[in-house]
């Protein structure tokens, strides 16, 4: 086989993997298939997601990419839902942590919000909820409002990144549902959070 044939075989293989397995058509999971072209395939399946590796496979014809994009579109609703639970996929990351008295989404958590926003953009019928939480200190009612503000901040960012307003419902549990039981900063920092939840979680 010549070089082009190897690449095409790889593409087909990657396409089959994307279509048949529960592996989601995403950059992160595709990276597990150790092939430059596989990465490119994944990028193609995600029409709206810019990829810095797009130019890497300049020698490949457009046709298979277009086909797989269509294929990916068909399988997306199934594979996409599975992506939400795939530990290797960023969509499985569901918690965004906040600083004290703050509702600013920190830089390190923006990729998570961004990935979920993209997912909602690609799955217009999908709805999800963002649950805001606060640490135990101070007024329970004020903390309820703070948790709401955190959830709303995440929702706003998702809307900017392509999600529709009616896809994201926000709710706050204030300080009522801590994940860390301690009474120190270590626990408090884990409890100041927003959690992303889908109906079938």
């Amino acid at each position: 086989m010549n070089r082009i044939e190897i690449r095409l075989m790889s593409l087909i293989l990657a396409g089959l993997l994307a279509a048949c397995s529960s592996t989601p058509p995403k950059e992160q999971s595709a990276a597990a298939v150790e092939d430059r072209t596989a990465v490119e395939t994944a990028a193609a399946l995600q029409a709206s997601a810019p990829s810095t590796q797009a130019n890497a496979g300049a020698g490949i014809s457009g046709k298979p990419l277009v086909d797989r994009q269509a294929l990916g579109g068909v399988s997306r609703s199934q594979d996409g839902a599975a992506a939400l639970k795939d530990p290797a996929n960023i969509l499985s990351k569901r918690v965004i942590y906040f600083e004290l008295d703050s509702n600013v989404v920190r830089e390190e958590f923006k990729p998570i919000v961004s990935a979920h926003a993209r997912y909602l953009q690609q799955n217009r019928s999908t709805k999800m909820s963002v649950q805001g939480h606060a640490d135990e200190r101070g007024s329970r009612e004020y903390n309820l409002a703070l948790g709401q503000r955190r959830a709303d901040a995440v929702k706003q960012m998702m809307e900017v990144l392509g999600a529709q307003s009616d896809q994201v419902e926000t709710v706050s549990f204030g300080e009522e549902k801590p994940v860390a039981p301690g009474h120190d900063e270590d626990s408090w920092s884990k409890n100041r959070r927003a959690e992303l939840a889908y109906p079938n979680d």
Partner: protein
Amino acid sequence: MIFKINKLIVFLGVLSGLCCGAAPSLAQLRIEVVGGGASQIPIAIVAFKSEEGLNQRITPVVSGDLVRSGLFKSVDVGGINPPPSEPEQMNYPQWAARGAQVVVIGAVSKAADGRYDIRFRVMDVAKQSQIAGYVYYANESQLRQTAHKIADVIYEKLTGDPGVFSTQIAYVAKRGYQYQLQVADADGFGGQSILTSTEPIMSLSWSPDGQRLAYVSFEQKKPIVYVQSMRSGGRIAVAAFRGSNSAPAWSPDGRRLAVTLTRDGGSQLFLVNADGTGGAQRLSQSSGIDTEANFAPDGQSILFTSDRGGGPQIYRMSVNGGAAQRVTFEGNYNTSPRHSPDGKSFAFVQRSGGRFSIAIQDIATRQVQVLTDGSIDESPSFAPNGKTILYATEVGGRGVLAAVSSDGRVKQRFSINIGDAREPAWSPLAAEH
């Protein structure tokens, strides 16, 4: 000698209402007094004649109530034979020698209708005369309540303020993943669960007539405000709008509640009807968080928490809306305002150096007194006589209820034998009727 005995009958409508659909609870609160008043009245409470035959003796409850208030000091009554039960049996010099200023005497007998006849007199040792005397008729299940009423009479006669021993407290008990809305006597006795849920319950608020309790429940996976009847146990959702519904506060006439809603965006104050009819009328207009409304006793204005200026501070505004005036200026975190019953001051939570304490501010002078030194004190609630503030704190990692006198001198701690206790709310005086 004057024999003035007023006849009162114990009405226990609220208690009988509680029994309907309310399961007895294992959780029992016990109170430990941590401090004491500056000047305590030395009082001798003599066991009532024939009370030793009762399943529920009267005088230990009366004595417990008075001593826990921090305003009374118990004088030993041992060794006086026979113990007096009538005024003519009083040996005043003997009581004076023991340091007693006041002696309480009484007797229990069976009335013609089968109920207990419980009569008592409060005797002034210096003046050698009766201060007060009453007779109560009560059945077996009302003996403890009768004892609280006797303590109320003694407290009012000797301090000039209404006693609150016959009132009730509501709080949330959390055990594992179970939340129980409990109602107990003011001494922590007889806790009954009126709502059990696996989702959080918070922000309890008694209606001014003590017949209804408003609260926030997450049972529908989001905060909704309910009003529950103490008598029937029935309830209505008074605020279940899109978004979050919380922070219920009764208007003094009991017809409306101020609540915090997020239906228009951020957390803002609204008014809703207490009977669940009609919509919500927006009260505050800010881009920040406005929450924790609390009506002034005259019903004309509310205090509330807002972070419109940065951190959370307490503001006042008219119930007709309009501009709000900031009223707290010390520190960068002041929340949870609650008017005193006389409307002259308000209790709130103040953060200072990372610690959360209960404080009280005089409305006219703006003078602030920090009352507690806990690290995580919250949810202040005034006793209906304004003399004591009930609040939630934490001891050894567990939530407990505590109380502090509004002058900061007397501190009490309510210990719950299982789980966490939080979100206390003291009932109005009317709850006993």
